[in-house]
């Protein structure tokens, strides 16, 4: 399939015994049928639907950015925009927190960058034990459609590195569609916001990287080529999960 086309639930994507039904599809005799709204994708013989929309479904290993909305004696409830809140157990924090000290460490309204270390679909358990995870300070959050996160990150982080270079911001992208940008100058953060919005609006256009480079030049007068940007080695921003360029 050269150009990916939008498919609708119940639609036959392709026919043939040689194809395998991947995510978002099912087999019905000779037909591979869409079970979700999205872009049909064929690679090798695997047919799947890349979602264009839909709530973020956390997977083990994902990096998420969320807000503390509850504190119990065992840990914190984290809202990260999914269909359920996540739970950060006191034991999954890199230091000892005594009874009654939870709110001193993380309080209502605080933002955390955490890893999904276990989920059964119903309960989502988070951890901030590893380096690079923990409470997020300063900066601002930008909400994007979680299905567009792979485009914001780019192949091996190429897109997010381009944004960092162009704006001078630190950036962390959560798989849940929450992006944290931080800089001493708020203008830089807003510039990053503008670029991210541009990426999301054009996420399914071919040659996105070039278009973003042109946008950056037009808006901010900076000539930057993605291939010239050195990948930065901050552990914090190696988000896991699918990277689909």
């Amino acid at each position: 399939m050269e150009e990916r086309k939008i498919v609708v639930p119940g639609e036959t994507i392709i026919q043939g015994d040689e194809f395998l039904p991947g995510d978002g599809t099912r087999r019905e005799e000779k037909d591979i049928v869409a079970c979700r709204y999205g872009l049909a994708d064929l690679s090798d013989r695997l047919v799947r639907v890349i979602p264009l929309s839909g709530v973020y479904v956390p997977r083990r290993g994902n990096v998420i950015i969320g807000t503390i909305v509850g504190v119990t004696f065992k840990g914190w409830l984290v809202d990260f925009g999914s269909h359920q809140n996540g739970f950060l157990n006191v034991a999954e924090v890199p230091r000892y927190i005594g009874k009654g000290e939870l709110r001193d460490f993380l309080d209502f309204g605080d933002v955390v960058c955490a890893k999904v270390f276990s989920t059964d679909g119903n309960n989502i358990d988070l951890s901030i034990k590893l380096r690079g995870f923990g409470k997020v300070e300063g900066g601002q959050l930008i909400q994007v459609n979680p299905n567009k996160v792979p485009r914001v990150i780019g192949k091996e982080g190429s897109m997010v590195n381009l944004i960092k270079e162009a704006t001078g911001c630190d950036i962390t992208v959560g798989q849940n569609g929450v992006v944290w940008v931080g800089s001493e100058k708020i203008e830089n953060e807003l510039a990053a916001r503008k670029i991210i919005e541009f990426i999301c609006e054009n996420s399914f256009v071919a040659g996105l990287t070039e278009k973003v480079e042109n946008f950056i030049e037009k808006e901010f007068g900076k000539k930057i080529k993605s291939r010239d940007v050195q990948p930065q080695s901050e552990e914090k921003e190696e988000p896991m999960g699918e990277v689909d360029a």
Partner: protein
Amino acid sequence: MSMPTLQKRRIIEYIKQGKRFDGRKLDQFRDFEVQLGISENAEGSCSVKLGKTEVYAGVKMSTIEPYPDGPNEGTLSVTLELGAMADNDFDLGAPRIEAVEMARVIDRGIRESGIIDWEKLCIKSGEKVWQISLDIYAVNNDGNLFDVAALAGLIALAHAKFPVYNEKEGKVEHELTNTPLPLKKEKMSFNLTVHKVGDSFVLDPSLEEEEISDYRLGMALADNDGEVRITAMQKGKEGGISESDMESILKLVEDSFKGLHKKVTEMVWK
């Protein structure tokens, strides 16, 4: 997602510099978009968008017995639905307290402005008068529903026409006349809500700004021979208004009034 503290801090910091995330000035409104006649079964109706915030409003007329304290006067009833359609935090079911509050403030604004010529709504003194039912629905909440709802209500009223009244049979026909409602254009008052965010005052708040504001002060404003006349006021949320706050707010209102009044007049009466 819930409002994180760091976000609130950033918004306030930026507003302190007189700037907003979407590039607007503190007293700047987003773009308006008005569509008339969204229901052919209404005496008057419209959809109003302010940025991405959208509201529908419609007018229905019926005949009722007048109230004893106004035997020659028609009546007005205003409802506002803040339904689950418009916002993730709006519930299904029972009306939110804010909806009831807002509806009443919009009602008072219209009533006290004197824009409706109540006696021209009289059909038979002491027996029958017209009741104007103005119903407003939130369709998408992206901040400042209050001002948009009030404006949509005004526009629906301004474009409404009387239905045909069959005097012989004493009933309302399923047909519209060409006669607009008895409104005194010059008495029109429009709603303006000021929000205190950090130490600054903001007009037409975004969703985030609205959520973090200390308090809001909603006002209905009319033109009284070039002077601002306030026909309704309502403070909402918990924060307290200091004396200097009040001065700043009133100055902001005075400075913005002419431009806004002109814009609203154009939109309502075109």
